[in-house]
């Protein structure tokens, strides 16, 4: 069994999750990666192993308890549990965005399930082992949608705000076990979704950002790696924005 610490990154095939996986691997951690997109996840795993690092992948939906059983069976049997948990999985249903009064309850339920409940489910399974070991890192990827209140995304903002309250409670409950719990609120980050946007929309988004640029997934991954390290031993219960100053916390 490897002596390296083990990081579990959910929703890790693309975008921010992928950048976190690469950054954490390069900092010397073993990885467990979960995503619904099997082929993309496999390609990422090959990329990581070609650099001489290690990753175990599980393709499946984090809402499925059978998938979570498989993730934590592997975590227990092939590793000594999860040391660092990056709860990145989430979905904004941006393609269905609408004024709340016109929105459909099925959409909210789905968004809350993917963007909030899965994090509670996964964290609930990961924490006991961290408590036994007396060390852990939990990093919840929220969104500046939770801070700004972007029109049309009531369900997503509710889910991502829920993560902030969850982060604070869990930080209090686990502090004496040397388990830190923090949330990151990325702003506009260049991901696949941007490829399909009209350039004028991106220009409008940039105009709201004091640094006048959208971020890269690596901008978020750098903070995840810092918070995962021993350098951030005393940072807990915090909500940290990575957004070029769009909304200041």
């Amino acid at each position, binding site marked *: 069994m490897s002596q390296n610490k083990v990081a579990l990154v959910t929703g890790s095939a693309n975008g921010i999750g992928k950048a976190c996986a690469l950054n954490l691997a390069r900092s010397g951690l073993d990885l467990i990666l979960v995503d619904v997109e099997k082929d993309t996840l496999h390609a990422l795993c090959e990329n990581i192993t070609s650099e001489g690092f290690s990753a175990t992948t599980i393709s499946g939906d984090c809402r499925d308890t059978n998938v979570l059983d498989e993730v934590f069976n592997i975590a227990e049997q092939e590793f000594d549990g999860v040391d660092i948990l990056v709860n990145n999985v989430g979905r904004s249903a941006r393609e269905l965005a609408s004024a709340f009064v016109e929105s459909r309850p099925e959409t909210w339920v789905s968004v809350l399930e993917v963007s909030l409940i899965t994090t509670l489910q996964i964290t609930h399974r990961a924490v006991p082992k961290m408590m036994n070991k007396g060390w852990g890192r939990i990093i919840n990827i929220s969104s500046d949608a939770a801070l700004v209140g972007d029109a049309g995304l009531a369900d997503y903002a509710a889910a991502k705000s829920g993560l902030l309250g969850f982060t*604070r409670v869990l*930080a*209090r409950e686990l*502090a*004496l076990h*040397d388990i830190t719990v923090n949330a990151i609120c990325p*702003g506009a980050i260049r991901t696949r979704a941007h490829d399909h946007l009209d350039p004028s929309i991106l220009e409008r988004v940039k105009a709201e*950002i*004091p*640094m*006048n640029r959208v*971020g*890269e997934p690596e*901008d978020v991954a*750098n*903070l995840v*790696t*810092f918070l995962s390290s021993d*350098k*951030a*031993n*005393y*940072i*807990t*219960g*915090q*909500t*940290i*924005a*990575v*957004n*070029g*100053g769009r909304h*200041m*916390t």
Partner: protein
Amino acid sequence: MAKRLTNRKILITGGGAGIGRECVNQCIDEGATVAVLDQDIDDLKGAIENNSLANSIVPIKVEISNSEQVAMGVEQAALKLKGLDGVVNSAGIDLFTSFDEMNWDDWNLILAVNLSGAMHVCYQALPYLSSSIHSSIVNISSGAGLLPIPDRVAYCASKAGLVMATKALALDLGNRSIRVNAVCPGAVDTGLFRRHLSDQGQVRNIAARYAMNRLGTVSEIAAAVIFLLSDEASLITGTALAVDGGRTFH
């Protein structure tokens, strides 16, 4: 691992002791050269002689509440370092007193050092920072600037002012790619802290305010400062990052 501040020129106020001194040490470990503006630089000068750091540290004696000294000190720092890429405002003073027993001159002094002094350093450093492509300002505020603590009205107000000045400056300087952030430490185990609080019972009571039930170390605070100075934080501006073991939940 590659050094994160190679060839960066960093000005650190209050770098003679405590958190500021640890920021100096970690900046140098990461490859930077540093100018220290502090009212007491004797100890630092001794350390420089003992560790052959004369090429890495420029100590400049400055009283931060004195505008003329700050203007001259920043200019001297930029001349000696040949520019500035970063500023860490760590100089600060504390005041424990009930509000009704506070000496009004002390209120003015706290504001003059913790808020006006820090912002005056930024003001004087701005022309130099504008010429750098890696500019980052880190203001050491306090958890007390986010969530109050007893008998510290002036201190809390000065540190809260510094948080908002940080955000407003971040907004104004964003399009010049100058990032401005605050680090908000909780109670940190420094020599100054121990001199004020020698009683172990008092120290335990203060530690109990924090979910981790302990004081922070200077190294833990400086690590956050280094992160914010470095390019790893290149999209982070206008934040107040609390490093406090769980009190402010900011």
